[in-house]
């Protein structure tokens, strides 16, 4: 399998503070790849700079071989990379259906099939399609945020902490969905603080610490890694 995304020497700084220091990693096509790490490690900044929302200092982001770093977010979405931002960010005063249609904003073709696909993944959204998104529960809003990103028909979907602030049973549901999305052939780049869950679904994983990638391996390997166990899984050596 080839790499759908290759990050080369990416650096991002806010003012004088370097959030990401020269990181490089690959995302293999059709896989679930996760970045784990504590608060402030630079995970969100990585995703945001890939999505074009945050400007990088230097480096390269190759998507299907083309450098997308420095492109505006709409061009990046058009190429097939979408971001599910942290904290859900649904449009509260628009209906569920309108939210989904915004997801397909850049597409000119027919979206009926994609709408059906999203409704099959999330039957709850179909029931609530006329409801204002702001009135949904946290879990439903997360479903909507994921569904909305799928409406762009992405090749790579990037999710920023999808389990944040959700009840354990809902979190399980979200991870099931991540698997299902992946089975549809969409590559997933996932950021999580819930390292246990993330490593279980991931094909490969990277650990980020203060702006650098310190460890990498398959999900199963990192689950067994002593350092990871102690730092992120809450288990003693």
């Amino acid at each position, binding site marked *: 399998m080839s790499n759908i995304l290759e990050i080369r020497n990416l650096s991002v700084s806010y003012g004088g503070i370097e959030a990401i220091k020269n990181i490089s990693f690959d995302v293999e096509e059709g896989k679930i790849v996760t970045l784990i790490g504590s608060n402030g490690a630079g995970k969100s900044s990585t995703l945001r700079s890939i*999505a074009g*929302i945050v400007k990088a200092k230097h480096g390269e982001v190759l998507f299907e071989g083309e450098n997308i770093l420095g492109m*505006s*977010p*709409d061009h*990046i*979405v*058009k190429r097939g990379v*979408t*971001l*599910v*931002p942290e904290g859900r*960010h*649904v*449009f*509260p*005063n*628009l209906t569920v259906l*309108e939210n989904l*249609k*915004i*997801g397909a*904003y*850049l597409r000119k073709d027919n979206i009926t099939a994609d709408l059906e696909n999203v409704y099959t993944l999330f039957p709850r959204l179909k029931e609530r399609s006329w409801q204002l998104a702001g009135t949904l529960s946290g879990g439903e809003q997360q479903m909507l*945020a994921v569904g*909305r*990103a799928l409406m*762009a028909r992405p090749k790579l979907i990037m999710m920023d902490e999808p389990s944040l602030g959700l009840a354990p049973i809902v979190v399980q549901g979200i991870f099931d969905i991540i698997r299902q999305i992946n089975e549809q052939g969409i590559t997933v780049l996932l950021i999580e603080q819930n390292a246990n869950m993330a490593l279980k679904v991931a094909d490969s994983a990277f650990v980020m610490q203060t702006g650098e990638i310190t460890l990498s391996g398959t999900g199963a390997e990192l689950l067994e890694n002593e350092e990871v166990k102690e730092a992120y899984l809450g288990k003693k050596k």
Partner: protein
Amino acid sequence: MKSKTIFKAIDIVLLLAAFGVAIAVDLVMPVGLPATVLKKGAVFAVVAVSMNLLNGFTGLFSLGQAGFMLLGAYTYAIFSIPLEARASVYYMQDHVAGFLNVVELPVVVAMIAAGAVAAIFAFLIGLPVLRLKSDYLAIATLGFAEIVGAFAKWEMLGPITNAPNPLVNYPKFSKVTTYFVAAGICIAIIALLVRSTYGRAFKAIRDDEIAAEAMGINLAKHKMISFVTSSFFAGVGGAMLAMFQSKAQANSFNTALTYEILLIVVIGGIGSLSGSVIASFLYIACSEWWLRFLDTPDVIPGLTRNGFRLVVFSAVIMVIVLFFRRGLMGDKEFSTERLVKGSKQFVKDIQDRKARKAKEVN
């Protein structure tokens, strides 16, 4: 389904009835307070709706409306004054700018030019200021409006703008109906824009910029479209206000005018076009007509006097802002269906409350 069609039909009948009123006033009472109120109300409706497009639908808090109206009013006046009348209008008769001796535009073309000039300025101003957010954008646009006002009064521009002196003798709409038709066209275009996919993108930007950007909505481009469109119609509204006032003078396009329009938008409901239209007519009717009796000294001797209506009017507005925070319409549009269902619910609520009270007493 059937009742929905009936309600839709009633909505259309009501809309036509509004134009019917305009025609009736033209026929029965072409001069007088009702005609004045309807004309001014139509003008303010255009500007309020254009401001709502920006503030209510795109979430850009701009206070530059009076500046764009001034640009529109002056453009209209300068280009539509008949060539033979120009010498009598400009105070420096031998200094009138050369092109003004040859260019005279027909009314409709001059109105579109008014909008276009406002839109061009909006584009140029928008490049730097649309990077700003909320209050900062408001301050920047407010400053822009002040600068435009100062330029219009500048001696050096006298050959074009007539400096601080008013521009007069340009063609005006005489009938209420004409005002209504012009306003109707402007408002219909904005309503179509709001309902298009662009409108949905505007609302997405208003609700959450980060998510909108992540979904591939080009923030700068869409904000600019909204800003330029809003300013275009503010310019056309300015031209109509110039017609209504029979003179175009920088002093009347001041910050107070922007606040009046903002007030109308807030009273009508931020994010409701029909709310802005209804509020425009109510606002103008109250300030110009219904409260005028308070200006006569003998209503309450010793208290009511010239200007007293403005005191009462301010109090009324404070009450509205305190108790109807979301305005008359909130962010919903007017429809007979909603009105009927809403009032049914209201009656039911009252009956429920009565029944509950009766139960408690027993």
